[in-house]
């Protein structure tokens, strides 16, 4: 690596992958509970497993983003990190807070956790994805502020590029929008309205800026294409992202008590949301085709291309599938939503994080790329996980279509639980595919332990 302080990225990447394993294990528990309803009941009820599954995902993606930023910013800014010590301190605070939160979820009933952590003083808990105790949320704010202070000071004293500017805008946006997790009106319509300012404006807004800049950085490194060309693409992609994504929030405002003009606005703008993802696919393939060097890290290039394709399929195509309001009227809150969620998160954010880890980790370990054997194992991990998520998505989509038909469209609509039993075959197939995903993840992790006799880092 070019700057000593980039080394602080390493613990972030390791913790991210460890939490990824936890996420998948709890995903398998939930998947089994879908078909064996009493599995681990009442010790780990479904809602607890789900909190661990989704919160571990969010935290590990944030850990990965932070690691990516600590690696990327010094190199782009051509200067050492403002304070590596602060970065390491924040790592431990974040990790311990996340760990304690998960222990809290698993060991005490949620209502008692709320009472223990002072939710009465500032009630923020119990809303999807924002289940963390209020004190954990405050801790996240502190960590985020220290992190942003550290990075902003670094960029201010160094070179300003499109890549580090866009990354900083994305990260500041992430932190500012998170403040809406403290907004919890009694009025359910307003509660839901502003809840989406965190959830939607994160994943279909500012996170895409982070994704774009990570992808741009890795593509500059592995292809050697002119920075000028890549930065232009980056601005075009993020323009398309925010022009479509901000008003695209409207696709969540169809059925929650908000005015009905949102059906038109949400349908139009969210129908355009696949465009930035398509541009990202074109971008990744174009840059790799125009490469001026053969970077020894083939695995990182594969992950970068995979991000382009899978983000487009998961976020773009599967999002479009149910985003028009007349369609969403039938699919809202069904397994179709779950199908989209799985492929979109994997394709966009999981793969972007792994792209960065795949590129940076060998360098952090003192070599330009891993050995051929290690890269082959990593690519096996890539294909096993990616193919698994495609099939998980297809099975959930099948379950969702049947669910919509049985419960909402047929002449004699069935109750929810009866419809669920009717589609259980697809839940079983999803669960077994999930096991293959876990195997893929373990193969990926194993690749880190295959001795690397690759070329020394430049």
């Amino acid at each position: 690596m070019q700057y000593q302080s980039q080394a602080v990225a390493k613990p972030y990447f390791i913790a991210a992958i460890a939490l990824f394993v936890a996420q998948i294990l709890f995903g398998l528990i939930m998947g089994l509970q879908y078909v064996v309803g009493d599995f681990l009941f009442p010790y780990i009820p479904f809602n607890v497993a789900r909190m661990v599954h989704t919160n571990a995902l969010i935290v590990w993606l944030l850990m990965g983003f932070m690691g990516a930023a600590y690696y990327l910013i010094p190199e782009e800014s051509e200067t050492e990190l403002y304070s590596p010590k602060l970065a390491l301190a924040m790592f431990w605070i974040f990790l311990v807070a996340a760990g304690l939160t998960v222990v809290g979820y698993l060991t005490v009933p949620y209502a008692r956790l709320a009472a223990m952590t002072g939710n009465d003083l500032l009630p923020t808990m119990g809303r999807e994805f924002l289940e963390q105790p209020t004190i954990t949320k405050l801790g996240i704010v502190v960590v985020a502020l220290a992190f942003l202070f550290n990075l902003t000071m670094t960029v201010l004293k160094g070179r300003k590029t499109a890549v580090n500017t866009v990354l900083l805008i994305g990260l500041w946006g992430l932190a500012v929008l998170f403040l809406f997790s403290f907004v919890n009106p009694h009025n359910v319509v307003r509660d839901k309205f502003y809840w989406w300012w965190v959830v939607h404006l994160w994943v279909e807004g500012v996170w895409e800026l982070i994704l774009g800049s990570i992808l741009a950085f890795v593509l500059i490194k592995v292809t050697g294409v002119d920075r000028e060309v890549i930065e232009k693409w980056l601005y075009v992609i993020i323009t398309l992202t925010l022009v479509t994504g901000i008003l695209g929030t409207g696709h969540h405002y169809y059925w929650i008590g908000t005015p009905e003009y949102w059906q038109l606005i949400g349908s139009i703008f969210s129908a355009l949301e696949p465009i930035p993802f398509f541009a990202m696919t074109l971008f990744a393939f174009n840059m790799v085709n125009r490469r001026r060097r053969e970077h020894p890290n083939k695995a990182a290039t594969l992950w970068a291309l995979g991000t382009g394709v899978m983000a487009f399929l998961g976020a773009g195509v599967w999002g479009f599938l149910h985003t028009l309001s007349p369609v969403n009227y039938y699919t809202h809150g069904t397994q179709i939503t779950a199908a989209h969620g799985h492929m979109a998160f994997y394709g966009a954010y999981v793969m972007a994080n792994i792209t960065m880890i795949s590129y940076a980790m060998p360098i952090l370990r003192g070599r330009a790329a891993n050995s051929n054997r290690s890269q082959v194992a990593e690519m096996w991990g890539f294909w096993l996980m990616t193919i698994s998520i495609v099939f998980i998505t297809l099975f959930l989509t099948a379950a969702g279509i049947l669910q919509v038909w049985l419960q909402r469209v047929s002449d004699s609509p069935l109750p929810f639980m009866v419809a669920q039993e009717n589609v259980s075959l697809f839940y079983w197939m999803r669960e077994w595919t999930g096991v293959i995903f876990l195997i893929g993840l373990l193969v990926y992790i194993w690749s880190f332990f295959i001795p690397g006799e690759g070329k020394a880092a430049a």
Partner: protein
Amino acid sequence: MSEAFTTSTARNIFYGGTLFFLLVFLALTYQTEQSIPARDKREMLADAKVVAGKKIWETNNCIGCHTLLGEGAYFAPELGNVVKRLGSEEAVKAFIKSRPPEGVPGRRSMPQFNFTDQQLDEIAAFLKYVSEINTAKWPPNIQG
């Protein structure tokens, strides 16, 4: 991309476009805040039971299994219209009370939360309030 279209042009379009759509979004937010009192049944929040019920809903993580107006987990039934589906607030309370503590062998079961009668009244009042919100005729039928 052509030479005339430079990186700084792209950057300016990014800042301008983002700012423009952000302002449109804020304007629509303002408009939404102005118009929802006619749809969101906020007058029912004057009843302290409804507000207390929302807190019980949150602190027991009901959204971790159920959906409410289609948002949440997809493991258990939609509850935005549950008062209408089961017929009354009494029926909702009776259902919550009747959950076996050890679950149902082989099947999904709601945990037994051991709510007091007052808490049950509050939850039911909250769910009744949600069922009155104007949701543009969603869900498509009573099954949610």
